[in-house]
């Protein structure tokens, strides 16, 4: 046609491309083979460096070739120091080209760190600028973030400078989760809370709340700031502590629980039991007989040890070389005794608040309410309202919390399981607090829409547990913490797994009506409960099995006296 510029067709273009690729492939194969043979033959020479360089420039992701380069340099270090120095200084610009090819190349970043650490005269400031440049290009490149931390450490950059850097990145784009995270690492170091480990001192904390608030009011659907806000609301690290010592005369057992899972079998974490001031050789065991780490440990006492005419026995547990202790007294005539920290006193479920901070949290709560008025469907805001009300006063906001949870389930059904579990956790916490106020050992958790059980390590003294009318699928293995449990009501759930009743030594009555137990094998954990008096299994599919009652009798023959 008239006047048209003649252009290569797409077939021609494809053919040109294909030819180029073919040529490239051939070169690559030849070079790879050459490098491999040199390595095999131990030819650690300049040519080997050249070959590997040519390949890595095109594809920096071949770890073997980076290794080969390091081998060569280490080999040269034995005598050719000048040359090593020369190569090392040329290595940095070379690595920069490689990283441009693939800014997320594990091999290239690793090699870069190796080179920097090896070179004597590293220009760390320049390296920091490089990190900045790469992070500007991709602010979420975690390889580069890692490298930056490495550089900062070596260059001795003050944390305050780095904090300023995160402020700058967040100012440019507050969706930069990496920057928020880095901030959460830096703040406790720069402004440590004098009392709580891993937390930020109050004046700075208030500024951070404001920053996060600015972000989520600007864009409430951006999750980074909400996550950061949640970290701000977070609690101090749990300190090591013995939370409970319990002794039972009929069971000849001492039970100890800890603030976090521990392994008493490790020598340095050994806990020593003193009975009437005499160290007693103990063999600690976990209640579920399986775990390595556990909140709860038990030990058997030899028969007759706690008998006799003495007025009382003193059981003392010393842990961490005697730094942490707890003791309980067993009076004559009592069968059991315990000493337990109170959940209320420890503020286990709410934040420990100074007057100022609690007013800040209330202000925070108010602004979240305002935001919720503007954005009634925002899941992050709903969730934060729940978290804040839990932090301020768990029982006081119970009904509001429930409304918010229902709303959350409606607006974000994809995360229903998460919200339901969180709700369950709060229900369990409330149940535990109520039990503590009532000073009983009976825990009522019936009809609370529980999907899962939490805080089982805080239930070691519970004798009666009612979880009927919930949505539980299992009685989890961790239930073995409930070593004092005598009566368990778990009717009207969706339980298929009762592994949790295994090894409950004083369990007498079990109600499991209207659940989903379908096979005899699922009932097997009951056989380990040697004081079992009654088991109710009505309304389970297993009932319909032929000769069910006969089989059940057989199964429980050894446990059921009646």
């Amino acid at each position, binding site marked *: *046609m008239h*006047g048209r*510029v003649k252009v290569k067709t797409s077939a021609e273009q494809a053919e040109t491309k294909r030819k180029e690729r073919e040529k490239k492939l051939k070169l690559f194969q030849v070079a790879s083979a050459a490098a491999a043979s040199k390595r095999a033959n131990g030819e650690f020479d300049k040519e080997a460096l050249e070959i590997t360089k040519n390949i890595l420039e095109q594809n920096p992701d071949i770890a073997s070739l980076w290794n080969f380069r390091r081998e060569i340099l280490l080999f040269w270090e034995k005598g050719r120091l000048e040359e090593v120095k020369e190569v090392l200084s040329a290595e940095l610009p070379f690595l920069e080209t490689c990283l441009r090819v693939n800014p997320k190349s594990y091999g290239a970043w690793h090699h870069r760190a190796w080179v920097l650490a090896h070179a004597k005269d590293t220009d760390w400031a320049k390296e920091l600028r490089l990190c900045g440049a790469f992070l500007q*290009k991709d602010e979420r490149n975690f390889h580069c973030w890692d490298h930056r931390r490495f550089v900062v450490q070596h260059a001795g950059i003050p944390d305050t400078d780095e904090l300023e850097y995160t402020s700058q990145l967040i100012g440019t784009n507050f969706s930069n989760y990496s920057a928020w995270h880095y901030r959460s690492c830096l703040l406790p170091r720069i402004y440590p809370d004098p009392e709580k480990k891993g937390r930020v001192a109050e004046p700075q904390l208030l500024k951070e709340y404001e920053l996060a608030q600015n972000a989520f009011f600007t*864009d*409430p659907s951006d999750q980074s700031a909400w996550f950061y806000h949640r970290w701000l609301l977070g609690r101090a690290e749990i300190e090591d502590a013995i939370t409970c010592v319990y002794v039972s005369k009929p069971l000849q057992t001492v039970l100890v629980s800890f603030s976090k899972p521990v392994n008493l079998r490790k020598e340095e974490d050994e806990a020593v039991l003193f009975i009437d001031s005499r160290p007693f050789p103990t063999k600690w065991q976990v209640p579920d007989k399986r775990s390595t780490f556990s909140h709860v440990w038990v030990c058997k006492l030899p028969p007759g040890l706690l008998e006799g005419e003495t007025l009382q026995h003193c059981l003392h547990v010393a842990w961490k070389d005697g730094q942490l202790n707890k003791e309980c007294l067993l009076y004559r005539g009592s069968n059991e005794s315990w000493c337990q920290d109170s959940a209320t006193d420890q503020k286990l479920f709410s934040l420990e608040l100074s007057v100022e901070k609690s007013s800040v949290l209330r202000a925070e709560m108010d602004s979240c309410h305002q935001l919720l008025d503007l954005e009634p469907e925002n899941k992050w805001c709903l969730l934060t309202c729940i978290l804040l009300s839990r932090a301020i006063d768990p029982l006081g906001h119970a009904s509001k919390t429930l409304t918010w949870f229902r709303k959350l389930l409606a607006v974000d059904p994809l995360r229903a399981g998460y919200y339901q579990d969180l709700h369950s956790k709060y229900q369990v916490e409330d149940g535990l607090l109520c039990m503590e106020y009532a000073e009983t050992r009976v825990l009522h958790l019936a009809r609370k829409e529980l999907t899962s059980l939490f805080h089982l390590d805080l239930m070691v003294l519970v004798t009666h547990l009612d979880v009927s009318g919930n949505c539980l699928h299992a009685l989890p293995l961790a239930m073995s913490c409930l070593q004092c449990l005598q009566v368990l009501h778990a009717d009207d759930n969706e339980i298929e797994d009762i592994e949790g009743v295994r090894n409950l030594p004083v369990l007498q009555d079990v109600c499991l009506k209207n659940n989903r137990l379908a096979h005899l094998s699922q009932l097997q954990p009951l056989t380990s409960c040697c004081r079992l008096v009654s088991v109710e299994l009505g309304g389970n599919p297993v009932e319909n099995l032929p000769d069910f009652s006969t089989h059940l009798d057989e199964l429980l023959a050894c446990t059921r006296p009646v």
Partner: protein
Amino acid sequence: MDDSLPDKFDVVLLGTGLPEAIVAAACARVGRSVLHLDRRDYYGGGWASFNLDGFLSWTQGHGSVDGDDMRNGVDVDCSDLPFGEEEEFIVMAQPSNASTTSPLVTFYDREAKEHSVSQNAEESTANLGMKDSSVRENVTMAMQSLEVASEESKNLENKGIEEAADEGAGEAAHEGAVEAAGQGAVEAAGQGAVEAAGQGAVEAIEGGAEEAIEGGAEEAAEESEEDVGEVSEDLDKPREDQQKPPLNREYVVSNSRKFNIDLAPKVLFARGDLVELLCQSRVSRYLDFKSVSRVLTHLDDHLMQVPCTRADVFASRDMSVIHKRLLMKFLTFCLDHEDHPEEFADFAERPFREFMTERGLTPSLQLLVSQAVAMVSEVQTRTGLVAARRFLRSLGRFGRTPFLWSLYGAGELSQAFCRMCAVFGGIYCLRHPLRGLVLDRRTGNCTAVIDYKGKRIACDWLVVEESYVPQGYCTGTCASRDISRAVLITDKSLFPSDSNEASVLCMPGKGPDGTTVNIIELSPSTMTCAPDTYLVHVTCPSSGSPWDDLAPIISPLFHFENEPESEPSRPHVIMASYFSTSGSTGDMDAYQDLPLNLLLCPRPDPQLDFEAAVEKAKVLFQRMYPEEDFCPPAPEPEDIIYGEGNTTNPSEEAPDLTDDDTTDNAVIHDAEER
């Protein structure tokens, strides 16, 4: 030389403004033969950019005088013109190029008294009388010196492209330079290149240098090279240790070449039609852009930066968090308002302000939205929403604002399309007026044009800028509304901050009909003004004289030397110039009984953007060639096959300037130089 022009073209265009240039490029791109003429000696018509000397002489009407006297064949002797019995000859309009009102140019020197220049001494005196009577004495002297300056400038400027083409071999080098510059700009403007942005900028400047070197006249080339060297060094070295030159008239006049002053200053919406067209057609390879660094607004009697991005809103200290949310929520709604018509149905025809009140926006947020985001004054809700959406959807593409500035001035844009046209065989002649049209009495079509030398050139389509329309076609109703303009050169930014490369400020006009005044402030990095100066364009639709329209807006923002020292923080004005340009009638139906194959292109409008021009060009092209693609992507240079079969060479008919060794077969023809 004119004998070498072919006798027949598919399309003849008259006027090298942006819409004509786009139509020309589109036609040439799909293989039509194109002749593109301009009676002026520079590209762009009402869309042109000038250096300072060129601008000053334009305000004096010099830009148009030279050729017209001898070429305007007004007294046409019809007998010697070649047309037949069934044909009718119609004389073309020969409009003036300069300001439609008497322009007023004033220089302010810190020490000396101001110098004022005006085309009409009486008029000037009248105008100046309002300000300062002492000025009068200086007028004559200033005028003389200006004459000299403009004489000098004539040799150097605004002959860029056609001369470059004369040096056929220069073409390839030029191409390369422009591409290199393009890459630099892309790297700098992109998501943040690893190299310092400065590097990209330097590349862009170097690219620009090449362009200047080839574009300029011989004697100018050396000078230009030096200039560029200086600029590059400026980027490398901090300037603090250098002695700043006194910023006065002498300084700006001696740096005339560093200015690129637009007659129709406009910015591109990052997702607007023009950007899409530039990318799609790959005309973008001939251009460099800088992201406008901020949008300003004038609230409560002081300037503030408009929070454009999410990050700006986040960082803003001017708003409470609740206001941040309300603002963001409203802006999000503006962006999606088309999907939720029910939410504003009751307000669609009511004032935008009422709708914003209903949405809980405080009065200051309302001002922010209407003035800075929608850039409208009192409008209906529907209009306001559409305007806000246009702003918002262009965010987040390039830089921190929705706008792009074309380096070296907006006049570059029409030249870039002309260039694309030339690459695909279009022929260009400047200073080439037409005497008139030849109409076929039977069909009413325009079958040919007669150029100033009497040569008859047949065409299928004739596309002309509005002002060329022969008088007989214009009915009484097609009076156009003029545009009031002011151009200032100042010593610092209106709102000094870290990034003030280019700023856009939209303010409600002082006129009775609620028009807006657009202000564009440009720094030297936009390649439109000399180092240490700022170039400020002020534009609004005319209600009265440019002075009456704009001075009330300008005077509170700037400091003039003849005023008492008010606020020392305001920018000092070195030069101020008020003039007006012809606006478009907007309504092309106002012309009656036009030949069916004669199409009209609009003059620049007072809007901030180019959208209307692009839209019009597209419509015209589709009317001409409905079956053809509008500006499909130009092939990459490496995909072009050379040297096979001359049948495909569009420039075959033009006997000159076909050079198979160049990267394209550009034929840019300047009748005058040959």
